[in-house]
């Protein structure tokens, strides 16, 4: 009797351990797991005064001012692979009584132009600056070109200028990055 009890109990218990199973699961779904964060990040900003557009020493107008910055995260291999869409948002506040043309030229490490965009800024007055907003949505094949770039050249062009010109052109900007890992 004593031994009769041992075997069945042990057998049931051990078989329970052996026949334990994992079911109703589908691990292939792991392939479909995708992180899709949407990241808001500041880009560049500047404050240009009217005096930036006039060379007071040589008494000549400067019609185009240019500056360049690296944005090295953009051509990072991970970003190249994961970036699906980028929405650029530029907000100009123009207190200079001139309209402007602003060019954004994205360059690769070897200074090849990979992507460009351009906008016009409405003229304002020092007392009453005018806001111009510009949005650029980059997606599809353009993303490949954009993420080939590691720097951006910003050129601001004024149609005419003189030494009495007054006011400030301000830019604030941000980018919304749609990523998928």
């Amino acid at each position, binding site marked *: 009797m004593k031994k009769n*009890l041992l075997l069945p109990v042990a057998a049931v*218990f051990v078989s329970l351990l052996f026949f334990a199973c994992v079911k109703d699961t589908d691990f292939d779904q*792991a392939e479909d797991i995708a992180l899709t964060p949407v990241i808001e990040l500041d880009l560049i900003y500047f404050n240009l005064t009217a005096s930036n557009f006039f060379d007071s020493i040589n008494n000549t107008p400067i019609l185009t001012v240019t*500056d360049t910055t690296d944005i090295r995260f953009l051509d990072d291999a991970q970003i190249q692979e994961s970036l699906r869409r980028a929405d650029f948002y530029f907000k100009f506040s123009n207190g200079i009584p001139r309209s402007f043309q602003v060019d954004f030229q994205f360059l690769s490490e070897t200074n090849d132009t990979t992507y460009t965009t351009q906008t016009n800024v409405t003229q304002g007055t020092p007392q009453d600056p005018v806001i111009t907003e510009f949005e650029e949505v980059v997606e599809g094949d353009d993303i490949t070109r954009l993420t080939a770039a590691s720097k951006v050249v910003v050129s601001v062009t004024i149609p005419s200028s003189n030494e009495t010109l007054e006011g400030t052109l301000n830019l604030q900007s941000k980018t919304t*990055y749609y990523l998928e890992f």
Partner: protein
Amino acid sequence: MRDLVTCIIALWAFTSIAQNKQLIYGVEEIPQSLLLNPGGKAPQRMHFGIPFLSHLHVNGGASGVSVYDIFGKSNVDINTRIRNKIFEMENTDFFTATEQLELINFGWRAKNDIFFSGGIYQEFDFVFYFPKDLAILAWEGNRDYLDYEFDLGEVSTTGDFMTVFHFGTNKQITDKLTVGARAKLYSSMISYRSTNNTGTFVTRLGDGSVNIYEHTVQNANVTVETSGFASLRDLDGASQVTNEILGRAFFGGNIGLGLDLGATYDITNNLTASASVLDLGTIFHSNDVESYQASGTYTLDGIELIFPPLVDGQGTLPYYDDLEDEIEREIPIDTLTNSYTQMRPLKINGGLTYKFGRIVGKGGECDCRNPGGSIDRNQSVGIQLYSIFRPKAPQTAATAFYYRRFTDYLSAKATYTVDPYSSSNVGLGLVADIGKFNFYIAADNLLRYGNLAKAKSLSLQLGFNIKFDEE
């Protein structure tokens, strides 16, 4: 490093509240019960474990999520399920894995009636708290969370791989009271921890600021302390890493000291109380220590272009490099090699047992050698409490049990445990004494064995010993 991560994930995948051995605690037939309460009763005259087979314990769990929750067959998209889980889980939810493998275990009763026991076991212990805010940030990004302060301090994790050498004494000092103590020497092979972190990250719409947003890391202080990792970096391949780590098993790494204490008290001859405190100890990490600390406050608002007048052939200012330098200056990541001490996770057990049924073994109602002590009976019921001190808070489990000795050869213990993982954890342990051969196996969460994927935690203990009973 990648091999190590794979190992950790594999261990986690294969394997309740960590280290709760509710099925073995208080079961005198199993010599390893003395490791759970050095002041437990040891009825045998002598025992030794079969090397490498005397005790294997594996256990893994996740308090907030099961495999089924994520990978179960369902019409709901897996990403939606993950997202729902991220929002459902709390930052006090955790993932944990523990493994113990006994190399040697022995014990004997000396002439002065003190029971000595000792041995060596290897232990792996890992806990990772769910950093909810960072998970949201990674899953969703910051666009929909403007002004929300993501808590960087939710990062809290520890991991240890060590060998433990122990030696304990146990004595019945009065008819009713048995006490015991066990000294432990820890030989840490590899260890890391990141606890007590602080800081927040927030993106706010700039109000009168220079750019559209302000991205601010506020009062960050995030530390990762490691010991035994730095020297692995120069090694090549998994086999070299494995050899190096295992080479530290016998005092090749860092050393620590600890103490277990326990007692059993027979309140009446059928009511017994017991309690133990385990791993009251510290490991001193001084060899091969490398710690990383990032601290500071910084607000990012983009890159300001200042359009300097350009001379031909001369580049503009290195804005991006300057920005990187500024961030490194404001939130420096320091690498320290200062030694540090680490408290072992303290564990507390308590139990109350009521015995009933047929009288078994030696000692009857009128056993002159045992006038006030308890009388062994073939059945008992009781409650047990277990608590382990983890970085954020103690994790506690409560167990009700029924124990029955079927024959001299076979005993069983069934448990019902309520812990952070679930309130329906049923476990069963069996002990067989066949001649001098002792075998035990215990597993919990049996209700989930029909589909392990639905279990949030599992634990399994088994082992083989040779026991010599009192003449």
